[in-house]
């Protein structure tokens, strides 16, 4: 069973002791599913001749929105508040939690139905609700599975990507007392039966927000299962939680983002349901909590600002060869994969997540698929630069010394030759040494060392460089 292979605490980039990922811990199911999804999504995108133009347009709209957050959020608030919604601003996760708990108490809520929301994961809202005796129920099927299993989502769009149908069957058997099945239809029916009860009982629904539209004052929630529709409309109180970066200027911008999000997230042309909520239903309550929780740190750093363009489609996770092997938990916090590596250090502090920008081969697959053209690979190197220059576990005095020496050696040809002489000598001796320490051992554990040739190119050039004369004439030489 794939969950057995995954140890919630194991193989994290963020575990100081393991100092980087020593062994991949992701399940095979996750890697295969992410790869399949990535390929499918690429073919869907490739079918659209103006895909690159869409990306560019989305990038520019987001760029405008992030530069005008102050006015756009105020415009959004004014418009949605005019239709009966209460808008609350929270600077931190604690404040946002406090708002939700207060609303729950005020309305004597015992059960909360939640539709998928990454920002409430950030707030660890479920724990806070449980602490005051309120039962939170995740209603997105993936989130429901993960919650039943007592785990954290491995992916921002498909939280239970690591589970196979058989895993789900065993989980339902163990936690819900249902007879085992690995049939998708039957599994869905079981979840549906149990969740329906919760929708009826719940006093409050909590949702995330995919887009907040400033000019109409609307919140947009996309989904495929219908659970978000029920979570936001069945209970008498709906609390929508959104990060400050979710606002887009106009309703007219929405179709572009819906097109990009569905195709990049799940390879659909459009999600099954797209909810636009313009205000509170008469006789019911709608709260919109707008949360910063570290996002303004990203705004402060002009080189990093683009990270706030993210529409949480998960395409970069599926495309990332590192994510596919490690799974989401290795990233230690809420947002895994390449996007996690570039936003987590800003949100929780670079000292807490310094390893994340290094969890990449810088292959650039993430940047290539990002529907809003976030320059993820370049953001990663930018953050590496910060991680080694600010107080963080990646700021090692020994590594700095190594690079200082390297920079010294690489500045004159004589020092270069001396250094390389030593390296060549070392590489000739190494195969005879039984044990290789540190980084060298990390190389030779799985790979043979290159063979050292008798001379370097520069030595060869000194002897034979003169012999190399251009053979053909006439290539732009005027002859």
């Amino acid at each position, binding site marked *: 069973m794939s969950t057995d292979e995954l140890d919630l605490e194991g*193989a994290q980039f963020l575990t100081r002791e393991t100092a980087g990922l020593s062994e991949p811990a992701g399940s095979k199911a996750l890697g295969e599913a992410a790869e399949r999804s990535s390929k499918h999504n690429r073919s869907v995108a490739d079918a659209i001749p103006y895909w690159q133009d869409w990306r560019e347009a989305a990038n520019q709209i987001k760029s405008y929105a992030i530069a005008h957050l102050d006015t756009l959020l105020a415009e959004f608030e004014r418009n949605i508040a005019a239709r009966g919604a209460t808008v609350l601003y929270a600077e931190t996760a604690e404040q946002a939690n406090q708002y939700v708990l207060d609303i729950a108490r005020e309305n004597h809520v015992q059960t909360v139905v939640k539709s998928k929301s990454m920002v409430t994961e950030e707030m660890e809202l479920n724990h806070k609700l449980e602490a005051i005796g309120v039962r939170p129920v995740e209603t997105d099927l993936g989130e429901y599975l993960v919650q039943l299993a007592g785990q954290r989502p491995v992916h921002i769009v498909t939280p239970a990507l690591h589970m196979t149908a058989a895993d789900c069957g065993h989980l339902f058997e163990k936690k819900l007392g249902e007879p085992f099945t690995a049939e998708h239809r039957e599994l869905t029916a079981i979840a549906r039966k149990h969740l329906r009860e919760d929708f009826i009982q719940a006093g409050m629904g909590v949702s995330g927000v995919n887009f907040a539209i400033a000019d109409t004052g609307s919140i947009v929630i996309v989904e495929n299962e219908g659970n978000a529709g029920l979570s936001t409309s069945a209970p008498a109180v709906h609390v929508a939680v959104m990060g400050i970066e979710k606002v887009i200027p106009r309703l007219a911008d929405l179709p572009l983002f819906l097109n990009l999000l569905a195709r990049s997230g799940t390879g659909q042309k459009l999600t099954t349901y797209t909810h636009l909520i313009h205000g509170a239903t008469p006789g019911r309550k709608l709260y919109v909590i707008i949360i910063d929780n570290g996002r303004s740190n990203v705004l402060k750093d002009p080189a990093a600002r683009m990270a706030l363009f993210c529409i949480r489609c998960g395409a970069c996770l599926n495309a990332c060869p590192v994510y596919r092997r490690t799974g989401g938990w290795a990233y230690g916090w809420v947002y895994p994969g390449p996007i996690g590596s570039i936003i987590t250090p800003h949100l929780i502090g670079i000292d807490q997540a310094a390893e994340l920008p290094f969890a*990449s081969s810088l*292959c650039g697959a993430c940047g290539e698929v990002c529907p809003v053209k976030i320059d993820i690979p370049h953001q990663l190197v930018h953050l590496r*630069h910060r991680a080694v220059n600010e107080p963080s576990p990646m700021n090692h005095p020994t590594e700095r010394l190594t690079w200082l020496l390297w920079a010294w050696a690489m*500045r004159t040809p004589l020092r*270069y030759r001396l250094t390389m002489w030593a390296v060549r000598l070392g590489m000739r001796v190494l195969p005879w040494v039984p044990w290789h320490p540190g980084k060298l051992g990390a190389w030779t554990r799985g*790979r043979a060392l290159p063979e050292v040739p008798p001379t370097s*190119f520069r030595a*060869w050039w000194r002897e034979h460089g003169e012999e190399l004369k*251009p053979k053909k004439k006439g290539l732009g030489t005027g002859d």
Partner: protein
Amino acid sequence: MIELKRRAPPEWVYPAYEGETVALFIPCYIDQFYPKIAEATARLLTDQGVPVAFPEEQTCCGQPAFNSGYWDETRKVVHHFCDVFRDYRWIVCPSGSCTAMCRVFFEHVDADPRVVEVGRRVVELSEFLVNVLGVSDVGASFPHSVTLHSGCHGRRELGLVDPPRKLLEKVRGITFCELPNVEECCGFGGTFSVKMPGASLAMGQTKVENIVKTGAEVVVSLDISCLMHVGGILRRNPATRHIRTMHMAELLVADGKMR
């Protein structure tokens, strides 16, 4: 026939080559561990009537320190690079990754236009042959089955998807085998290979499995750094030891012989 695929890579506008002497930038690991690649690069260019020079003051482009986050240290090496190559209008390098460092990343290290401008003059070898000189047939012959590994920096930072394919297409006697999942990283990633060896090796294993699937005798690439890692894995396993790794330049001058 090699199928050409194109997926919105970066596009560059190349100035016309007017017979100037081309400076060879030979990355440090090629200089020291793969001198034959540098030699092949020089021969390929002179065969096309291009005069070459090797400024012996050259050392490294600074990429390892840059990718590790040590930009102050990188800057010193980049300045040395710019001093060495200042007088050359064309700088040709047999590595996609090092070319990307010069052309794309120098400006992150130092936005001084003099630095950025020197970096922009660095052109990868296959790119120079195909895109600048307009030559894809260099008269090579290589009667073996070959698969192409595409280095990520060359592919995504420079957009070098077509040049290596065009060159291989014209090689006499070659049997080209398409590599499954060609766009996926081999897991080398410079210091990544030793900082996160578990993930790096797992990615390398997948690459090796895909190479084995092609049945090719030779894996060729514009980046011998990737192949140092992939070849290291291939050689560790007796079942895959027979598969050779070659740089594109070596293959083009090999005259049928395998390294």
